[in-house]
Structures are given as structure tokens and as C-alpha cells.
């Protein structure tokens, strides 16, 4: 049997999903299910006066209406101490869409009608829709108990690097904005609670079922085994479904009170204002460098908008940005600091990359600006600053941030083999002088990010019990195997990928392996799928558990064959004595005999099943080199990506087909951030991008095709050598695109364009550059 690890097998998940036989939360409806709907705040900041629920309660089919006063005993959601969010707005509303009351009715139409019947009196308060407004002198604190609007403030270096910056031959300041984005999984948030005398069963759109089980059990004071948390098929998450949402608590409580299953299905309009947003970060950058472009020092001051209620992940995002702000470069001195600011907007949490895309954007824009300032090629500046392969593992100045094995210069070389850089440059130059041609721009992004989240001390800071992952492998007596994994997918293809791993370790056919996940009743302890950890952390757990089963089977086989276990090898499903293949026993026969104690060595455990955990000793650091080529329409400012080439190093590639899918999806989201997407609020805090059409989620016509390739530099920190790749594309792409757009316009004097590079913004930048108002076009 050939190796399954590294094979492009098609997915086990697909047949049911392709025939409409998936099982998403809204597809599950136990008898008697009733529907929950929210009354949401239309204002960004206001005192809550009288809430009139009479009309709603009188409507036929309505089971009840509850306000914060009716739910006073319910605990708040966990967050930074003192900033915990109640499940319904209490006294005040703090962002548009914050739930004020909740209604349950016999069907979803009636529930929506009844929610519309509830009449809430608001006393408007001044709203802060931006961090500038929230930080302005005299701005009233949004959260009670916080003196101002700064939720967290931290410096991650001993000093501000002023000495090194002043000493540098050149110095440059930039202001960059990583705009607020909405994750928009196509399945919005959904939950279904069924609380009976036996306990609570809760179906959730979540990336972390065990984590949510623990949270819910704690909140209700229930023994953990009385909370069964199920993440069935989950329709995308992108980080946003890792957060705890108050609706999880509410459906549970209302199911308890009503004695019926209660379902809540968010509408898309609600999703745009209720699910966490991502990014929302402004950066003030100061960089010092020499005549050749060697970076001497980097100072980064980050202002993170964390929305109205700091999310446990959201407040920490700028810490991850700080850690990664040096990118794949050897920078002698980095001085990051950040403050997380409360505003009257939707809470900010993790969105594909969570803090690292912001860092990659920052340092890759810096590289291009330094090159421009010195008049040298941006690739030369990168090459002069790369951490070299011989220096790996590379300890950054930040404690615990140690880059694993990688070869950044080779990634760039491999990328350059795929594009004819000189020819592209020549074409870009030619077009500049041809007024009828679209402008051409070439942008690079050579990046490193973090994957494989743990270890436990780091992951604890985001509210998780640990940074490990777990797996159990059980071999049946017919030679089939069941694998239970603690990571829970939402599109990644765990069933396929983990089957490939087990197939190799146990030498059993891929088709005979079943992977279970997402149900706390059937899966042992687990953590979840986020931070590109499924393969680098969950994978080794599977690998180790399968290895333990193989070793047990090997000992039994040795006993039966009267051989030394060390002399046995497992080949094509059969243990045989090395060198004499005639003497052997099938794994299936070993599985059968493993349940016959009289045939086993004395005191043997029966059966072939085992559990393993993998606690990473380090994060992993996926890297890559991406190139984007854009065309810019001189008349309209429209940007088209005409070529996108990605070379990635995620360590060991388990399934190249699925790896391509992950890169494509991530790059698509990165391009969308660069060109299309932005969550916007007006100055009163009204959300002005409340639908997928206003927000500009890209369609097939808005995105290019992608050329992908891999360089496999295995990490030595886990037995599979895998680093993860779910977030690489989204981390790499924004700056590849923006660098290309700025490159296309650089001859006009344009030095920066904020994301999204909309036609209007690009056109303005060209016009303003043409009319010689450089103050507006340079950073």
C-alpha cells in the first residue's frame, strides 16, 4: 500500500454534503421545537427605558418575552475581568444590533413578528464609532467601571527604540490601517438547545465544542457530563465561530424554562452586526534603516478597536501582531506597543489569521516603502534582511516566539522561477508611457505567520483549558478503525486528512477508517479548530494514538508469532518478521485475538484502542512567498488581479488537493480585504454595511484563478512535520495586492493606498497625484 500522507485523495465528507444530506444546526428539529428571535438595538449607544412587551405577549403562538430584568440570575460571558458581557443589554445598549429582549414563538415567522411588536424606549447617548472618538478627551466611558475607553494597554519591549531609530541613516514613518472586516461564513450563527431532566443537549455552530461545553456547564453549574455539546456540520467559521455568544446561554436557559427545544437561527442582517468582526487595527510605524536597506529598528504603535464588549480573543489580537511584526526578517530592535479601545461597534474577535495578517501587512508594506525610499528593488531589501535557513530555529526577541525550520530565501527563489519578473517589470514600465494601456503593478509578500496554537500557557490566555489536542483510535475486529478527534472542523476536511494519517500508521485502507468529531458525548476531551492547529496539533495526536495502537498490536502479534516485537514490521496490513515475510499475521486477526485473553500475554489489556494527546512545545510558523500582478484602469481606478502566484511552506502537506483549497480560500479572503471589503459605521455608529451586497462579499467574477506551489520544510517540533495552512492565504494576500496597486501608481508619486483599494480610492489617488497634492498621496 502506498503512502496516503501526501496523496490527493478526494474527500470522505463530500457525498453527504453534495446530496443535501449534511446536517447543519438548522437541519435538526426535535419534535416540539420552538423558535427564538431577538429585539435588537437600533441605536449605537443609548439608555434603555421602558420595554413594552404586551403586544408581543398577546400574539398567538408566542411562548414568552424576556428582558434583562427577567434573566437577572444568568451569568455574564467570560472576558477581561470587569468587562464581561451580559446576555441581554442591561440598562444601556452599546452597539447597533445588541440584543435587548428575546422572544420565543411556535414558528420562526411568528417569533420575528413578535420581536417587531416589542416597543423599547431609548434615551440616546453620544456614540463613539471610531477609536479616535472613544479616545478623545471628554469621551464618556462606554463600559461601566472602566475609567476611559482603553480596555488593555501594553508595551512589549523595554523601551521605545528611539535611540536605535535616531542612530539609523534613514528613518521613515507610516500610518497603516487594517480595516474592520466581517468573517461572513455562509452559514450564520445557529443554536438549538434541548434541556431535559437528563441534562442539556446543545447544537451549535462552533469551532470548539468541548470549550463551549465547559463554558456552558460552568455558567449553569451543571456537571460537564450533563451538557452534551454538538457541533454538527458547520458552514464555515473563519475564527468567528470560536467565540462564545450570549445566544448560546439564552437558548439553553429558555429551553430549561419552557421545557421544550429552543432554536435560534441568525439572519444574515443580524450576522453582520452580531458575529464578531476582525482586524480593525490602526498602526503607527517608525522604521530606521541603512543605505542598503538593512532594517535597524522598528517601532510599532497599535490601536486596536475591540468593539463594545471586549472578546477574549479580540483584546489579545494586537499582542499577536506585535509578536509577528518583524516578519521573516532579522531586525535588531523591535518595539511594539498596543492599546485595545472600546467603541460603540460590534465586538471584534478572531478572523482568519487573527492578529498575524495585520503584522504581515505591516512589515511587508514597510519593506516596499524602504525600497522605494532608497530606490532599490523591493526584493533586494527583503533578501538583505531575511533570517537565513541556518539560523533556524530562530528565537525572536519575544519570549517564547521561536520560528521553526524554514527557508525564506528559497521560497522567494521558487516564486521567481514561476514568474518572469524582469519581463513583468519591463511591461509595467512600457505601460506607464502608453496612455491607452492599463497600468500594471507587481506586488510581493514574503511572509511568516503563526500556526499550531498552543502550547497551553499561551492558549490559556485566550480562555481555553489547554493548547493540546486529543485523539482516540479504535481498531474493530473486522479491521476497520474509528478515530475520535478533539478538533472539530467547519470545512477543513478532518475526516479525510486524519484518515490518511491513520491509514499510513496502521496500514489499513483509507475507506475502512471513520473519523468522529464535534460531539462531546462521543469524543474524549478536546479543544477546537482555530489558529491553524488541526494538523500541527490535532494531527500529531492522531499520529501518536494510532502509533500506540500499532505498538499494542505489534506486541500481541509478536506473542502469537513467538517473535521479538522489534523484529516485526507492519506491511500492507500484516505484521511479518523482517526478512522472512512468510511468517506473519494479519492486523485484522490480531484485532480479533486482542479480545481473546487466553491467547494473550498475561495481564494484557483487551482490545486495540488507545488515546493520545499532543501538547505542542512550540507554535509552528508557516511561511511563503506570494506575488500578485494587477492591472489598474486609468479612467475608473478599477483594479483587476491578473495573476496570483503563491508558494507556501506549511511543512508536510498531508493532502495536496485540500491544501490547494485552503490556500485558495485564504487568498480569496485576502484579496477581498485588499480590494472590496470593509465594515463601515457612520458617525452615529449606524452600521452601513449590513448585507452581503453592501459589504461586497466577492463573487466568482471578482476573484482570479490562483497558481499554487509548496516547499516542504518540515518542522522538527511535531512528528508529522506539519505547520498548518488555514490562515496563510489570508495572511499573505492583502499586502501582495496593495503592494502591486501602489507599484502600479508609484511613478505618479503615490506611496500608499488604504484598504480596500476601491475604484474610488485608487482613482482619487491618481487624480490627486496628477494634480500635485502629494501631501494626500504619500504616507
Amino acid at each position, binding site marked *: 500500500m502506498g503512502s496516503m500522507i501526501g496523496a490527493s485523495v478526494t474527500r470522505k465528507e463530500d457525498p453527504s454534503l*453534495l446530496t443535501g444530506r449534511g446536517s*447543519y444546526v438548522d437541519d435538526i428539529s426535535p419534535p416540539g421545537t420552538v423558535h427564538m428571535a431577538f429585539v435588537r438595538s437600533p441605536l449605537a449607544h443609548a439608555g434603555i427605558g421602558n420595554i413594552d412587551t404586551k403586544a408581543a405577549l398577546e400574539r398567538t403562538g408566542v411562548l414568552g418575552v424576556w428582558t434583562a430584568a427577567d434573566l437577572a440570575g444568568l451569568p455574564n460571558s467570560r472576558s477581561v475581568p470587569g468587562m464581561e458581557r451580559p446576555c441581554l443589554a442591561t440598562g444601556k445598549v452599546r452597539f447597533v444590533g445588541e440584543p435587548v429582549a428575546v422572544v420565543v414563538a411556535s414558528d420562526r415567522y411568528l417569533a420575528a413578528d413578535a420581536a417587531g411588536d416589542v416597543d423599547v424606549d431609548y434615551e440616546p447617548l453620544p456614540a463613539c464609532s471610531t477609536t479616535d472618538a472613544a479616545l478623545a478627551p471628554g469621551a464618556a466611558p462606554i463600559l461601566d467601571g472602566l475609567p476611559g475607553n482603553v480596555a488593555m494597554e501594553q508595551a512589549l519591549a523595554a523601551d521605545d527604540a528611539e535611540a536605535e531609530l535616531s542612530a539609523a541613516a534613514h528613518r521613515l514613518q507610516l500610518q497603516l490601517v487594517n480595516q474592520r472586516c466581517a468573517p461572513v461564513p455562509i*452559514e450564520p450563527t445557529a443554536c438549538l438547545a434541548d434541556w431535559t431532566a437528563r441534562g442539556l443537549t446543545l447544537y451549535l455552530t462552533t469551532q470548539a465544542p468541548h470549550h463551549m461545553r465547559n463554558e456552558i456547564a460552568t455558567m449553569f453549574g451543571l456537571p460537564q457530563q450533563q451538557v452534551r455539546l454538538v457541533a454538527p456540520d458547520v*458552514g*464555515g467559521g473563519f475564527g468567528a465561530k470560536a467565540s462564545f455568544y450570549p445566544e448560546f446561554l439564552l437558548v439553553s436557559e429558555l429551553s430549561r424554562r419552557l421545557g421544550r427545544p429552543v432554536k435560534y437561527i441568525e439572519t444574515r442582517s443580524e450576522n453582520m452586526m452580531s458575529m464578531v468582526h476582525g482586524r480593525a487595527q490602526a498602526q503607527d510605524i517608525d522604521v530606521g534603516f541603512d543605505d542598503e536597506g538593512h532594517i535597524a529598528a522598528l517601532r510599532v504603535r497599535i490601536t486596536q478597536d475591540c468593539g463594545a464588549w471586549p472578546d477574549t480573543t479580540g483584546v489579545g489580537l494586537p499582542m499577536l501582531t506585535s509578536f509577528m511584526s518583524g516578519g521573516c526578517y532579522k531586525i535588531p530592535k523591535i518595539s511594539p506597543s498596543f492599546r485595545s479601545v472600546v467603541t460603540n461597534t460590534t465586538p471584534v474577535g478572531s478572523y482568519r489569521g487573527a492578529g498575524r495578517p495585520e503584522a504581515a501587512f505591516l512589515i511587508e508594506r514597510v519593506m516596499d516603502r524602504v525600497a522605494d525610499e532608497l530606490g532599490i528593488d523591493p526584493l533586494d531589501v527583503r533578501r538583505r534582511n531575511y533570517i537565513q535557513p541556518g539560523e533556524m530555529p530562530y528565537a525572536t526577541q519575544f519570549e517564547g516566539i521561536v520560528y521553526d525550520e524554514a527557508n525564506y530565501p528559497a521560497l522567494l527563489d521558487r516564486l521567481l522561477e514561476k514568474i518572469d519578473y524582469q519581463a513583468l517589470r519591463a511591461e509595467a514600465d512600457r505601460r506607464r508611457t502608453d496612455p491607452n494601456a492599463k497600468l500594471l503593478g507587481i506586488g510581493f509578500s514574503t511572509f511568516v505567520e503563526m500556526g499550531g496554537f498552543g502550547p497551553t500557557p499561551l492558549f490559556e490566555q485566550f480562555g481555553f483549558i489547554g493548547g493540546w489536542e486529543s485523539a482516540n483510535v479504535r481498531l474493530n475486529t473486522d479491521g476497520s478503525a474509528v478515530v475520535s478527534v478533539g478538533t472539530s472542523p467547519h470545512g477543513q476536511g478532518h475526516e479525510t486528512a486524519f484518515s490518511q494519517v491513520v491509514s499510513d500508521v496502521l496500514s489499513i485502507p483509507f475507506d475502512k477508517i471513520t473519523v468522529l468529531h464535534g460531539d462531546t458525548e462521543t469524543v474524549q476531551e478536546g479543544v477546537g479548530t482555530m489558529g491553524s492547529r488541526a494538523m500541527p496539533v490535532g494531527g500529531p495526536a492522531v499520529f501518536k494514538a494510532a502509533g500506540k495502537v500499532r505498538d499494542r498490536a505489534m506486541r500481541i502479534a509478536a506473542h502469537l508469532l513467538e517473535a521479538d516485537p522489534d523484529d516485526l514490521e507492519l506491511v500492507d496490513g500484516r505484521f511479518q518478521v523482517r526478512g522472512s515475510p512468510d511468517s506473519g499475521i494479519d492486523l485484522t486477526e490480531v484485532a480479533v485475538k486482542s479480545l481473546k485473553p487466553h491467547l494473550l500475554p498475561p495481564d494484557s489489556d483487551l482490545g486495540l484502542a488507545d488515546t493520545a494527546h499532543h501538547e505542542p512545545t512550540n507554535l509552528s510558523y508557516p511561511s511563503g512567498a506570494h506575488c500578485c500582478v494587477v492591472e489598474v484602469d486609468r479612467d475608473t481606478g478599477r483594479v483587476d488581479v491578473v495573476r496570483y502566484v503563491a508558494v507556501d511552506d506549511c511543512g508536510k502537506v498531508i493532502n495536496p488537493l485540500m491544501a490547494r483549497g485552503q490556500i485558495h480560500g485564504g487568498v480569496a479572503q485576502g484579496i477581498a480585504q485588499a480590494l472590496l471589503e470593509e465594515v463601515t459605521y457612520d458617525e452615529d455608529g449606524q452600521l452601513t454595511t449590513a448585507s452581503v451586497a453592501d459589504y461586497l462579499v466577492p*463573487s466568482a467574477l471578482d*476573484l482570479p*484563478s490562483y497558481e499554487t506551489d509548496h516547499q516542504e520544510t518540515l518542522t522538527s517540533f511535531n512528528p508529522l512535520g506539519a505547520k498548518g495552512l488555514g490562515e496563510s*492565504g489570508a495572511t499573505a494576500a492583502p499586502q501582495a495586492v496593495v503592494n502591486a496597486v501602489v507599484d502600479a501608481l508609484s511613478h505618479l508619486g503615490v506611496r500608499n493606498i488604504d484598504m480596500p483599494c476601491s475604484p474610488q480610492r485608487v482613482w482619487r489617488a491618481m487624480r490627486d497625484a496628477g494634480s500635485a497634492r502629494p501631501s494626500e498621496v504619500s504616507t
Partner: protein
Amino acid sequence: MSRHHVRITVNGVAREDEVEARLLLVHYLREVRGLTGTHVGCDTSNCGACTVMLDGQTVKSCSVFAVAADGCEVLTVEGLAVDGQLSPVQQGFQECHGLQCGYCTPGMVISATGLLLENPDPGDTAIREGIEGNLCRCTGYEMIVDSVRWAAEHGGAGAVATGTRGR
């Protein structure tokens, strides 16, 4: 709310029901007929997750009332396979990894099927135009385009869809 009598054929099976005037076809399919393969991804008719075929034309079933489908034939994703054999479009999506989370997939598969009925040999641009009304947040679309191409080269829209069109 007034109730209306409808007779709707879904995947070849006709049934008569009493429905509220405002009941959307997508909710009729999911909740009255129990066919949960057709999904809801938005409330503004933008995402296409709810796409089904109505008398041989693709429609967004969130923007059609069930009463408007009275007397019509609906084909949903559940109706494409024959005796457990996936349609060429379904097979193409598996072969070319045209799905990840699978939530957009039923609508995407129906749109692609509709496209191949109109145009059995579409190029990449025609495919992208054909699925423009279906949002996918996972794949970045290229592998969906590959999937539809694969289907075009391996039997097209498939027997069921072609038959529905003919009826």
C-alpha cells in the same frame, strides 16, 4: 394570515399542503417537505445558498413564495442523484474539491446544473458568470469552476435535470 392550498412536485413527488401566504419556498421545502439540503445564507437574495430549479429554471427559493410554486415542479439537490449515483455535477465537485464547508454547495450545484442545461460547454468566464449569484466563502471559486468544467466533460447537467427540463 390567510392559508392557501398548494400542490407542488418536489423531486418527482407531488404533494398537497395548506400553507401561509407568506411562507417562502425555501421554508416550504425545508420545514414542510423536510428537505433540508436547500440552505438559507442571507435575507437579501444575494447568496444563492437557497437555489433550486423551478420548472427547469434556477431560482432563489428565498425570493419565491410557496404559493407561487403551486402546480410547479421543483428540483432540489436531494433529487439529483439516481439510485445513489451522483450526477456529473456532484461528482465534479468531489473530484475537483469544489466544496469545503458544504453550506453553499447545494445552491452552487443546482446553479451549475442550470448553467450546463443552458450551455453544455461553458468556458471559465461563462462558468463564473453562471455562478455569480452564488456566494462561497471557503473555496475562492477556482475549484468550483474546475468542478463545473469537469461535469461539462463528464455528462453535463445529468439525467434528472435534463428530464425535468423536458417534462
